[in-house]
């Protein structure tokens, strides 16, 4: 998901996340240009879907995930069913650690990265380049095969965007490496 500040035509940057509070998250985005802020509020169902995939909104947490974290976290607390084998405190912690990891994520980290030059030039360039299909050399295409299918289109789009920005006409292994560094892949 991405958010656009319509008046500035700028991508909003993640500012902070709060929660979960009774299953819902508050995710604040901020326009780097006009500084307008807005918050996305998730319902428990939406929160759960993201969490079940073990994806952290706002980037990977600073602390390393504990072994079997998602499994243990989502198993209905044993205390509800009988003698608990895991201390209750541990089962309940996800609330606090989750919010800590969400808030302590990479919020704002990329805010500085993208500083487009003349927006007009960019748009014109892009308009021209868009009509040309980005060419993927065979090796680069193959390398992408290692990325899980579910996120491959997203990754490809990101890499093509990077290549266009750099004025490359085709995606080679070299371009892939460069782009990878940029995305922290």
């Amino acid at each position, binding site marked *: 998901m991405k958010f656009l500040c319509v008046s500035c035509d700028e991508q909003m*940057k993640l500012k902070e996340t709060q929660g979960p509070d009774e299953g819902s998250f508050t995710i604040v985005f901020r326009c780097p240009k006009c500084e307008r802020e807005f918050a996305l509020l998730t319902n428990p169902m939406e929160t759960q879907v993201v969490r079940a995939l073990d994806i952290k909104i706002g980037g990977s947490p600073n602390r390393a995930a504990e*072994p079997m974290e998602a*499994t243990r976290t989502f198993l209905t607390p044993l205390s509800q*069913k009988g003698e608990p*084998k*895991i201390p209750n405190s541990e089962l309940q912690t996800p609330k606090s650690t989750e919010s800590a990891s969400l808030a302590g994520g990479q919020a704002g980290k*990329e805010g500085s990265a993208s500083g487009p030059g003349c927006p007009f030039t960019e748009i014109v360039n*892009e308009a021209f380049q868009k009509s040309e299909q980005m060419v993927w050399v065979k090796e680069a295409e193959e390398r992408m095969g290692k990325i899980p299918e579910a996120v491959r289109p*997203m990754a490809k789009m990101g890499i093509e965007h990077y290549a266009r920005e750099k004025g490359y006409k085709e995606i080679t292994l070299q371009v892939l490496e460069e782009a990878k560094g940029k995305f922290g*892949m």
Partner: protein
Amino acid sequence: MKRYKDFASDGGSNIVGQVVDQQTRLRSRLASVKHTVAVMSGKGGVGKSAVTVNLASALSLQGYRLGILDADINGPSIAKMTGIQRSAFSIQHSAFKNGLPPAIGFLGLRVISMDLFLPDEKTPVTWDAPTQKEAYVWRGTMEMTTLREFLTDTEWGDLDYLLIDLPPGTDRLPNIAGLLPQLSGTLILTIPSEVSQAVVKKSITLAKEHLKTPVIGLIENMKGYACPHCGNIGELFHSSGILACEEMAKNLGIPYLGSIPFDPRISLTTDVGKPFMSEFGDSPAAKAIIEIAEKIKTFIL
């Protein structure tokens, strides 16, 4: 106005990066595992778990290092079948930053199973959710996440074979194949009376054609009855064509690995966590299992 694809990155969550990172951790964990083999069946109760445990035992008795991942999240049975006491296993994981050490069953089998996370045998797996109705909806997602964690977060150590006991049916095979591009192959288990051979065919088609994972072959369980007194094998099911399974394998272009006779001592031992393969190693059923294990080794090498 800009559109979604005009931005190279997502909203700052770096989802691609996180998923790739999950994959990287999985790959480095499994670097010490030589071969991974998934065991599947069209339906439950055909002896998939018992055969998995006994194949693992056979290989372990030959000196190989074996692990079993119980991927049957809702019907876990491997811990019990390998003689692991729930109470002896600790999931007080904070001490294990590098991963959770697997539980150790008889013959040194390294096991991870949902069993170990539940307080007792009667407790069903339920996922925490705003309502249980919703929990049902993402059961599939959670099962997939758990599978990935079982693979990634278990400190398997050096293994020659990691056997994966899949739940009945074909639902989880795509997940496993997605998580493990290096899967050595799948074993498909069936019984002679299985009317729904269509399910077996479906499994094979899915594995072979759609997922492109190698099918090691078909195992026919409970074929005939081995008399514990004289060892003679009599017929158990009134199957019209004894060759049916063998023929089906041939028609589908997959190897027929052999049959295992019905032997009550399998359930008398395996179901209570005793090693059938070392206690009744000379029985026809044990010999059949050893023979199948040999074919699996040959296929993989």
